[in-house]
């Protein structure tokens, strides 16, 4: 297990209490789970993602991630319509372990309210929460 100080927590994404992250990418927002979350889960063997075109409110469950020891629900950091899912995860779910912020992204959404991003935790706040 990594120490908290060893976690990869980029400055350019925002975090939720449930350990998802969101990042603005042009017109859309990308969503995934944090380095801390993938560490806690262990080897990820399956990611269940919604269909493109489905819509979710902030906090709503959009899928599940299954590791060798647990299954966890995934919750929307922001409300919006799914415009793309990371197809690569079907074949290579381990990308979430190895590269949670780039190759391991999960969804892209068209946000209902782009300002919702600012209500999410900054790196410093998230780190503070992890330290307890």
């Amino acid at each position, binding site marked *: 297990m990594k120490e908290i100080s060893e976690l990869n927590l980029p400055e350019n994404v925002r975090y939720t209490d449930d350990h998802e992250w969101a990042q603005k990418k042009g017109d859309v927002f990308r969503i995934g789970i944090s380095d801390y979350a993938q560490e806690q889960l262990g080897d990820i063997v399956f990611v269940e993602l919604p*269909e493109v075109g489905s819509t979710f409110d902030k906090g709503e469950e959009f899928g599940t991630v299954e590791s060798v020891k647990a299954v966890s629900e995934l919750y929307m950091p922001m409300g919006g319509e799914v415009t793309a899912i990371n197809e690569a995860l079907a074949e290579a779910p381990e990308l979430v372990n190895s590269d949670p912020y780039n190759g391991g992204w999960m969804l892209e959404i068209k946000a209902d309210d782009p300002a919702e991003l600012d209500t999410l935790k900054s790196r410093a706040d998230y780190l503070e929460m992890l330290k307890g």
Partner: protein
Amino acid sequence: MRYLPHTREDIEQMLQVVGATDLDALFSSIPDDCLRKKEMNLPEPLTEWELNGHMDHLAAGMGASPACKVFMGAGSYNHYIPEITRQLLLRSEFFTAYTPYQPEISQGTLQTIFEYQTLVCRLLGMDVANASMYDGASGLAEALLMAIRVSHRKKVAVSRAVHPLYRKVVETYFAPTDYEVVELPVGVDGRTDFSGLKDLGELACVALQSPNFFGCIEDLESAGKAIHADKKTLFVTAFSEPLAYGLLKNPGVCGADIVCGEGQSFGIPQSFGGPGLGMFAARQPYVRAMPGRLVGKTVDRDGKTGFVLTLATREQHIRREKATSNICSNQGLCATASTMYMAAMGGTGIRELSRLNRDRAEYLKASLAGAGYASAFTAPTFNEFVVRFPEGFSDTWQALLKKKIVAGLHLAPWYPELSDCWLMCVTEAIDKNDIDGLVKEVTR
């Protein structure tokens, strides 16, 4: 475990240990209105030989007694059970084993289930099988729900030639949902008519049975092509007589996505309708949407082979509210019986037995046709087929029953349009003399 009654001395000793004066005191914590006040209304005890005699007498009055010649299948088949199956099942390791959650103490049971899954996959031509379900009917209902999960669509089509009781169970499963079941009609040859498929809209799946309820062998290959014209629609194949796949092309080869059915034929007594064994298999990409449990083979950290429950995370004992089905206790002993049966018969044995069933059924079909009783359908059949009998055959049927011959199943209650039709079945338990005897009786 031994089930021996307690003697008076045993009971007194136990009461002393727990410090109760008598049995009433021991059970004093049970609320008064929960206690039975009256004596049970039971006959006097019998000796073992009296009891055996009594049971033999009851059994002799049943249409299923060995003295009867039963030409009825319709989802439950009278097949010979090899002695090896009956004896091995009596081993207490198999007989008393409960759900093998703890792999470290359940290796034997887990390995047996793994072998079962392997044999089912080979028989059906599929990638992955679960550790069994209740029976063929609930297996079909689960298959349809699985297709809905996979396709994210809400409508399924089921052939009218699928066993009527399977369709009833599907109705029950679907009643509280907002999913829709539509029926595909049966053509004049006894097989499912696909001509209206295109007009049914977006379907999660199309379900057929082969051999179907009328014994007719569906053309699974061309059905699969028609169904897969819509790439999102899954092809579900059901069966009630797995022995047929000893001769016929298996559903996997014909393009099925999910295969489900009744495994009673393989080493499980008919027992007046239960318990049965739900066989269930699918293609690898759908494994996570499968109901029930799976046993996988792996290695421990020393590299030694071991067996474990896999994908248990989708099961109700871990995430009840997220479970893919409520199947909670598998048909472990029945699955074990069918594993022993399949292993004992081997591929060649199943093929030979399959041929014997087909040949004998064809002999009865030809004999009846020769006597003027034609088959209702022209499609090829396996060990069952539908015959039209002249008006008044119901009386003949009743008269034959008195002579200990069960001359098929009358289809009228299930298919009013086939009110003059009977479903006949011949397995290896019926020989040429029995067949000649039946033909002689009905032409009398």
